[in-house]
């Protein structure tokens, strides 16, 4: 399967986001791929928009099944969430559960004015009524496939596809 170029997708996303931006906007990337993407988009936009990061480990709904993830990074929201127009950024939108967790966590920081979702890849398979407003690409993937964003030492973003072996 030919995967799209993540760098190009990020550029397209930055362009699409342009019209949504206002003085109240803030970008929030979700660990780990979403943070890379948010940083890239932030740089591409070249504007003075606040940038935060979220690790939704503490809000996941699968804690009782799989416990705490091995590496939890601190969430870092260096601005007041209340009244903000938040652009939540993630690399892959799949079941929608991570986005739900992220929204729950955001509300524990304050009451945002609005939240929109920007994702690099929408791979389908939603289990919750969640959709993205800005989408880099839509790919139809089988459940045993895993798509993942990578960042090389030079900072270049790329997508990779992996077969999940049971």
């Amino acid at each position, binding site marked *: 399967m030919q995967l799209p170029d993540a760098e190009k997708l990020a550029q397209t996303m930055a362009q699409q986001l342009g019209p949504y931006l206002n003085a109240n906007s803030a970008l929030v990337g979700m660990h780990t791929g979403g943070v890379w993407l948010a940083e890239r988009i932030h740089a591409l936009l070249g504007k003075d928009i606040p940038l935060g990061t979220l*690790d939704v*480990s*503490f*809000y996941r709904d699968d*804690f009782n099944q*799989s*416990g*705490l993830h*091995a*590496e*939890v*990074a*601190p*969430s*870092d*929201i260096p601005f007041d969430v209340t009244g903000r127009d938040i652009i939540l950024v993630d690399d892959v939108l799949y079941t929608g559960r991570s986005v739900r967790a992220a929204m*729950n*966590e955001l*509300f*524990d*920081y*304050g009451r945002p004015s609005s939240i929109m979702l920007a994702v690099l890849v929408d791979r389908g398979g939603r289990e919750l009524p969640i959709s993205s407003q800005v989408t880099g690409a839509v790919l139809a993937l089988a459940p045993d496939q895993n798509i993942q964003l990578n960042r090389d030492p030079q900072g270049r973003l790329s997508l990779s596809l992996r077969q999940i072996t049971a």
Partner: protein
Amino acid sequence: MAFLSRNPQLNQHGELQHLLTIEGLGAGMVRHILDTAQSFVSVSEREVKKIPLLRGKSIFNLFFEPSTRTRTTFEIAAKRLSADVINLNINASSQSKGETVLDTVDNLAAMQADMFIVRHAQSGAAHFIAGHVAPHIHVVNAGDGRHAHPTQGLLDMYTIRHYKQEFHNLRVAIVGDVLHSRVARSQIHALTTLGVPEVRVIAPKTLLPAQVERMGVQVYHDMAQGLKDVDVVIMLRLQNERMRGALLPSAQEYFKSYGLTQDKLALAKSDAIVMHPGPMNRGVEIDSDVADGNQSVILPQVTFGIAVRMAVMSILAGSKQ
């Protein structure tokens, strides 16, 4: 003979099932707890200081020995994780009626407990309880006799890392009643586990356990020598009752020889931090000037303690059965 038994803290997947002592945890596990705690510190700084991780879980504070401070920090930690907390002080009621520790524990387990936070005056009590609870119940040792107080040890490590970043270049001195101190034992295990090259204990011979050097520490009886060039000074609490046995003549003489004053602290490195597990006896083991001085990190210790306890509870609750 040596009967080898499995480390009772770990489940068959090598995950932390109970936290009973820092001994035998391994540096990776200790660092994992500290890293996780770091994420929780930021939670405490938010508007809503609460996360839904342990929603629906019942955590029992099982205190066979009274301690409002420790119980409160566990309670806050559990509540910030959205768990239900039930406090039980068992010292008076059931124990005097001849109910054994196991009776009490069985009773509470029947109330669908998920976790026991145990404080007990006997060394090994937490191990004992952990060895007899149903497999889905987690046990956190909140202090057993003179043996261990692992969450205190961990929060001390968190504090040291916060101020000193690394462990491999540190010189740490623990001062005072090591003999009776579960805190000191946990600190010593944690420091040696994390690779601190020089851990010193400073105390009169009456307050040191036999063969303490076998725990990997250097023994000093003189503050001036022991504090020289250290990065971290940890003061231990001196209980008044030590003056009643033949361990010490008086609090005054103890303070004179082993109390931490600005003068003595000046022998340590200029950026040395001063720690104390609390509650302090001002004028016995520590001078107020030092306790409230700019090298003291005693209050941040308390703050970090909540995050560390949140980390421990989440990691335990998340381990497989």
